[in-house]
């Protein structure tokens, strides 16, 4: 028989007869592959997600003019999507007013948006548009084309108010309008009553043509001023998106590092269990290269078996992630992504088998605590501190990668030294008290497997806690950047209103508003009134200025105010509240309060109708209560007039069900991070399982030495406790260090600077760790009292 065929056969036999050992390595390999896969593919997935969900809709659309021609009440909307363009956007508003649209009401829902609308009589207000469309043709979405059964080149008659006449269709675009990615300039017109904001006829959208149209429109006398507001840059929303993505990528990258370390340590431990196998090969006259080949075959076999499992897992996960969050595009991971992930895992597994095969059998074992290691650890720690200082100065991301590498290397060495020192100290202390404990701790001190396992335990603690921190951080990021956390909400129901008036007033009082976090508008029943939610900063900086809070509104029937204002202004339900509009102050009755802190949703509701439809709501409402504390709902409902059609949408429901951009990405990030947490636990348990195998020999020696069962039980429990305690302490230290590193990185990226922690979730994590330790201890106890001739 060919000797390599024989080696293959041997590997197969080992795999067949040692399923347990193969299984745990398998798990480690799958773990590494999955982690690598996620680390590689998810940033791309996130990018793709926003390429579809955000960029098309927001990033490239510099100015959007919308006109709904199928409703009595038309909204003409001019938006620029750059924070810096706020002033310019206001110019657009001014421009439109100077054009004679004196009746339009403008309000600002985000700093970057201005909606201009005339809810009374829109007809004929935009006479310049029909000739413009007639000259250039229109581009419609395929939904529009299907709706009106038209094709490119056809002429359609638009009979909406404001835009009337026959227009030829220049182009029909495929796909959902919002998912087109190459818009540079859009003019929307159209829509149906049934799908109010979504079905637009796209007048001009395509990239190349859009540029030309942009120039044409720019040269148009009536729109010249409007288009001057066009600038490059990114919107606040995009910044937030980037923040989430970066935070997510950092968390996953750290997890990948730990995944590799997990795998390496797991394989090192496994190799201990392979010693007997290697020695039998040697006794049978196998050469080193043959031993290497046998082990390499085995490693390849494990990986080959892991590949389909990981592939299926990845397929399942990515499929569910993509479908769950509405990401379009390629449903499978890219081939190179998967190949890279597989190569990483393969390199780590085969590399360490190689290491074992070529290791000298009789090489003297390293001392548990050598001065050389300690020196190296100290040097690396010094380098780390220096590097961190430099990082603060240089503030460059590539540098951070180097820092992280040094950090991990330094920590590994340093931890090794710390473990040895701690265990040596504990061992010495135990000597006087308990010989058994002393024996256990001596082994803990001298056993490389014990140290590796402790290190592994520390990594597990670190990874799990880091991931938890990342999850909390991402959740906080969501609220912090786009939520209402520090903002009172003013709701004006069933009224025409003016937000700019509110803002002017607040500005005059030196009160900072954060309109980027505010609010949305929707058409109330009848279409000639609008309800309005506006967020106003009620943080401490503004508290004392809000005492004379005033609201501009024209015909406010009722008002709901933020709960914080209740305490700041001592407002009570039923109080007369002064509202001034165009010099006229109207007093109205405060209808109720909204708990601002419960508003966890934070996306920009540009598409309110779509938002409502996502919840199966097809009606119009003249009041919507979002994020209210359940206890407030009844109070608010009671406070409103009976005829008010109030829709109560609980924050949690919105958060979970509405697949808006931010909800999507936050959900995606949390899903992946939770999965990685689970895998960390799985890897930890698998390593304990490997360790258990390694311990059989030691327990046999103990039994041969005359130890009774109870003594062996005490022995393994002591050692187990030492591993858990030392590992947890080191893991927590590592967590603190790495958290600091993440915070630095976050600050560099302009992210939040506070890493919040949820006590309840950490309690859960601690409980899970305790369960893992308990499970392991139970397994060891069973092993120690096992009556088996094999050990």
């Amino acid at each position: 028989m060919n000797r390599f065929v024989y080696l293959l056969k041997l590997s197969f036999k080992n795999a067949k007869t040692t399923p347990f050992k193969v299984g745990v390595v398998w798990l480690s390999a799958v773990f590494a592959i999955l982690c690598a896969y996620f680390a590689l593919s998810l940033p791309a997935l996130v990018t793709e997600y926003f390429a579809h969900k955000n960029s098309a809709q927001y990033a490239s659309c510099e100015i959007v003019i919308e006109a709904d021609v199928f409703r009595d009440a038309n909204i003409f909307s001019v938006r620029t999507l750059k924070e810096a363009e706020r002033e310019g956007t206001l110019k657009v508003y001014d421009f439109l007013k100077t054009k004679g649209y004196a009746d339009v009401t403008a309000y600002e829902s985000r700093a970057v948006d201005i909606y201009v609308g005339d809810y009374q009589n829109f007809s004929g207000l935009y006479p310049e548009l029909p000739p413009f469309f007639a000259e250039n043709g229109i581009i419609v979405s395929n939904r529009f084309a299907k709706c009106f059964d038209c094709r490119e080149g056809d002429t359609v008659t638009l009979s909406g108010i404001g835009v009337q006449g026959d227009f030829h269709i220049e182009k029909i675009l495929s796909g959902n309008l919002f998912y087109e990615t190459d818009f540079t300039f859009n003019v929307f017109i159209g829509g149906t009553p049934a799908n109010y904001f979504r079905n637009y006829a796209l007048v001009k959208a395509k990239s190349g043509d859009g540029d030309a149209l942009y120039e044409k429109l720019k040269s148009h006398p009536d729109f010249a001023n409007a288009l001057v507001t066009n600038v490059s840059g990114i919107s606040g929303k995009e910044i937030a998106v980037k923040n989430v993505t970066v935070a997510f990528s950092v968390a996953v990258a750290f997890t990948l590092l730990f995944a590799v370390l997990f795998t390496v340590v797991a394989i090192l431990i496994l190799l201990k269990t392979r010693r007997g196998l290697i020695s039998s090969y040697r006794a049978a006259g196998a050469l080193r290269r043959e031993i290497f080949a046998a082990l390499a075959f085995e490693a390849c076999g494990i990986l080959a078996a892991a590949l389909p499992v990981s592939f299926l897992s990845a397929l399942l996960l990515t499929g569910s992630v993509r479908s769950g969050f509405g990401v379009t595009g390629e449903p499978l991971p890219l081939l190179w992504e998967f190949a890279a992930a597989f190569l990483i895992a393969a390199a780590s597994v085969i590399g360490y088998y190689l290491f074992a095969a070529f290791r000298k059998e009789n090489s003297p074992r390293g001392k548990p605590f050598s001065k050389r290691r300690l020196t190296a650890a100290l040097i690396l720690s010094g380098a780390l501190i220096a590097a961190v200082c430099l990082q603060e100065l240089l503030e460059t991301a590539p540098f951070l990668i180097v820092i992280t590498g040094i950090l991990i290397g330094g920590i590994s060495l340093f931890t090794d030294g710390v473990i040895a020192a701690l265990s040596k100290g504990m061992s010495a202390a135990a000597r006087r008290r308990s010989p058994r404990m002393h024996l256990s701790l001596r082994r803990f001190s001298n056993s490389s497997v014990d140290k590796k396992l402790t290190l592994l335990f520390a990594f597990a603690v670190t990874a799990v806690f880091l991931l938890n921190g990342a999850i909390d951080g991402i959740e906080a990021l969501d609220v912090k950047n786009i939520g209402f956390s520090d903002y009172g909400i003013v709701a004006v129901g069933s009224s025409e209103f003016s937000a700019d008036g509110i803002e002017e007033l607040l500005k005059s009082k030196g009160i900072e508003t954060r309109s980027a976090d505010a609010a949305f508008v929707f058409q109330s029943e009848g279409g000639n009134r609008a309800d309005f939610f506006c967020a106003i900063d009620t943080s401490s900086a503004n508290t004392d200025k809000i005492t004379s809070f005033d609201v501009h509104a024209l015909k406010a029937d009722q008002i709901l105010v933020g709960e914080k204002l209740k305490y700041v202004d001592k407002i009570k339900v039923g109080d007369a509240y002064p509202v001034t509009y165009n010099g006229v102050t109207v007093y109205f009755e405060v209808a109720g309060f909204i708990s601002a802190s419960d508003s966890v949703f934070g996306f920009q509701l540009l598409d309110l109708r779509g938002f409502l439809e996502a919840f199966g709501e097809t009606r119009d409402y003249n009041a919507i209560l979002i994020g209210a504390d359940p206890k407030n709902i009844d109070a608010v409902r009671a406070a409103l007039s009976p005829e008010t059609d109030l829709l109560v949408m609980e924050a949690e429901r919105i958060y979970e069900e509405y697949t808006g951009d931010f909800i999507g990405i936050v959900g995606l990030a949390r899903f992946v991070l939770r999965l990685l947490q689970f895998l960390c636990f799985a890897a930890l348990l698998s390593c304990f399982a490997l360790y258990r195998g390694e311990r059989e020999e030691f327990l046999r020696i103990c039994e041969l030495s005359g130890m009774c069962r109870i003594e062996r039980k005490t022995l393994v429990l002591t050692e187990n406790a030492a591993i858990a305690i030392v590992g947890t302490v080191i893991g927590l230290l590592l967590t603190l260090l790495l958290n600091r590193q993440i915070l630095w990185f976050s600050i560099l990226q302009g992210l939040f600077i506070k890493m919040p922690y949820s006590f309840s979730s950490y309690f859960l994590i601690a409980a899970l760790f305790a369960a893992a330790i308990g499970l392991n201890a139970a397994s060891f106890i069973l092993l120690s009292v096992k009556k088996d001739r094999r050990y």
Partner: protein
Amino acid sequence: MPIIECENLYKSYGKKDAPFILKGVSLSVGEGEFLVVTGESGAGKTTLLHCLSGAEMPTVGRVLFFGRELSALKRAEADEFCRQKSAFVYQSDRLSENLTIAENILMPRAFRGEPTQKADALFLLESLGMERFADRFPNELSGGERRRIALLRALSVSPKVIFADEPTGNLDRTNSMRVMESLKEYNQKQKSAVVLVTHSEECAAFASRRVMIKDGMIF
């Protein structure tokens, strides 16, 4: 005619200034000779065995193995050459727990690229009256049985020289004698050399020549 000769062997492990375990050992092993090396624990017996067998290269000195100087050969070449001529029996049986007894016995043949017929294993097992164990796994055998299987595994390739490192360690007297008798029988029938290290006087009695090693030097 010596088949193995070593001259002025020095061996140390680790750093350059580490103490020598072998200190100027010169020794030869003749064809068909049963050489027993005795000495106390730590005297350097196993190290000498490893150097003579080519498992390790001496720090200083040379080893002529069937007329070829091992240090002059490439490592892989030396390993292959030594494997073709010799076999090892260790203090522990080092049987692969995942293979049957027959498969364990045939493992050296497989590594040499030779045919691995089960009948060959049965033939060898019959010589010790252990053919009933052919399809069993090592953990079903007693310590003495396992040790004899380990010896059969070494003999399965008909080596010109057998290196045995305390092959009767941890065995009772009866089993020790069985192992030694099997080794002696093979030595006499096949005219193969045996180099055995032990600290047991009973085992040493089987030798055709005895040397003693103390503090890394031959006496």
